[in-house]
Each structure stands twice: as structure tokens, then as C-alpha cells.
């Protein structure tokens, strides 16, 4: 009986620990999904894969880019499809994902280098991206990319 009791208690503890760990595990899984989507977004932007890009952006998406311009989804897609821009490097680093239920905030660094109308350009940015999960699908709702000023 005593053994039975201990087994039961052990099982109960394992169950409770598993149950309490589940939200953390789920958050980790969602965080990893959002990171993967960040990479997919960067790749589709670099390669002008407009259909993929479009599927990642919410309809009410808004982005503020390095020169302070603000684009809606349609504006950003047009900007990304511009054939006079050739993106050679588009890389993310130092990504941190903060989960708030169905909203995720991603901060990090971004490096872009390329040619615009034959003229070379290069940015070393900081970024904030906001993703939301709706009907089981993550989409980015807002982005801000800026070049740090020197103090």
C-alpha cells in the first residue's frame, strides 16, 4: 500500500510538473516559429519573392523604414518589388522574441547591402517587428527599422 501511495504521489507530481511546463514549452515553440518566419521574410525580401512576402504580412501592416518613410502593406510590396533595387545582403542577428499570448515582439539587428539604381548602399539597423497569430497563422502587423545615431 505504501508503495502504491508513493507511486501515486510520484505520478501526481510528474503530472503537475508536466502541466505547469506546458505553457512554457508552447511559448518556446511559438517563439521558434516566429524566428523561422523572420528568416523567411528576410529571404523573400532579398529574392523579391512577392507572393511569400505578401502572405507573411497582415492586411493592416505598417512599416517605418530607415529614412522615416511609412508604408502600408501595398506600399511595402511595391517598394520590395522595385527592380531598380538589387539586395545583395539581408541578414538578421541578435534576435530576441518576447511572447505576449498571440502577440510576439521581435527585436534585433539587421544588415542590408545592395544597389539602388546602380548606386551602392548599406544599412546597419536595429529593428522591432510585431507578429500576431490569427486563426492559427502568424503574420507581421508592424515593423520599425532605424539606423542608430552616433552619440
Amino acid at each position, binding site marked *: 500500500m505504501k508503495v502504491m501511495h508513493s507511486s501515486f504521489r510520484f505520478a501526481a507530481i510528474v503530472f503537475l510538473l508536466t502541466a505547469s511546463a506546458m505553457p512554457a514549452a508552447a511559448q518556446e515553440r511559438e517563439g521558434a516559429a516566429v524566428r523561422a518566419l523572420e528568416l523567411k521574410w528576410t529571404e523573400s525580401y532579398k529574392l523579391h519573392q512577392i507572393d511569400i512576402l505578401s502572405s507573411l504580412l*497582415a492586411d*493592416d501592416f*505598417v512599416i*517605418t523604414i*530607415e*529614412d*522615416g*518613410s*511609412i508604408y502600408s502593406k501595398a506600399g511595402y510590396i511595391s517598394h520590395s518589388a522595385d527592380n531598380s533595387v538589387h539586395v545583395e545582403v539581408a541578414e538578421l542577428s541578435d534576435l*530576441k522574441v*518576447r511572447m*505576449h499570448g498571440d*502577440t510576439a*515582439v521581435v*527585436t534585433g539587428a539587421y544588415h542590408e547591402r545592395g544597389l539602388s539604381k546602380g548606386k551602392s548602399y548599406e*544599412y546597419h539597423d*536595429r*529593428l*522591432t517587428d*510585431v507578429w*500576431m497569430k490569427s486563426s492559427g497563422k502568424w503574420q507581421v*502587423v*508592424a*515593423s*520599425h*527599422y*532605424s*539606423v*542608430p*545615431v*552616433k*552619440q
Partner: protein
Amino acid sequence: MRGYARSAVMLCVLAIAAIPTAAQQESDAATLRALELKLAEAYKERHIDLLASMLAEDFVITFEDGSVYSKTGYISYSATPSIRLDVAETSDVKVRMHGNTAILTGAYHERGTSNGKPYEYHDRFTDVWLKTDGKWQLIASHYGVPVK
């Protein structure tokens, strides 16, 4: 049949109740605009308790120089006595509602002195607010100076 009809009606009522009305969204947007002003004022006047109450625990902010602060770091920074703010103003604020998450974009002007040295920023900003248990709190901010 009567049971099905009642269930269908109840489902409709629940579905309609779950959709935020345009009036509700408008009211939330007005609240958020007021909170943005309150935030800028609390930052300028160093009302640290008020500032802290407006920020979520997992708040993150990116500054003009690329520094990234947590809530604690930002509160410490805001309380720095060597910084004196003369102007902290938002303008051109747009609110986009996504249920309990709101995205605010706009322009921000800050002028002051840091360690006796004058400084001035003309930024673009993105603030992200989240409503939890009926209360809006800021979860993320990004302030950057546009490149020329």
C-alpha cells in the same frame, strides 16, 4: 428543432458579442492617444511611478542610438538626474487596432540637455500597446532618427 434554433440564436449572439464594434475600437483608440500623451508627460516630468505603471513587465524599447532597454533599464534611464528635458512631444499619431493589441506610429520631438550638453531628436516612433484585464500597457517601443 426548437433546441437547434435556440442553439443557433445563442451562437449568433456570442459571435456578435465577440466582434469588437467600430464604436469600441474608436473608444480604445481615443484612450490610447490619451495614454501616449500621458506617457510623454510622465517621461518629461520624471513621474517614475506613473511611467512604471504604464509599462508591461516584459517591456522593451529601442532608442535613437540603438540601445535596447528592458522596463527596469528604461526606468533607471528616465530617472537620470543629468538629463533635463525641455521638449517631449508626439505628433502625426496613427492608431491601428488589432483586437487587444494596438500599434501607434508617429513623429516625436525631444530636446534637452544631457550632462550639460544640449541635444535634439526628430524621430519616427512605433509603440505597441496590449490590453490585459481591461488595462492598456506598453509592451514595446522603437524610436529612430530618419537617415537623410
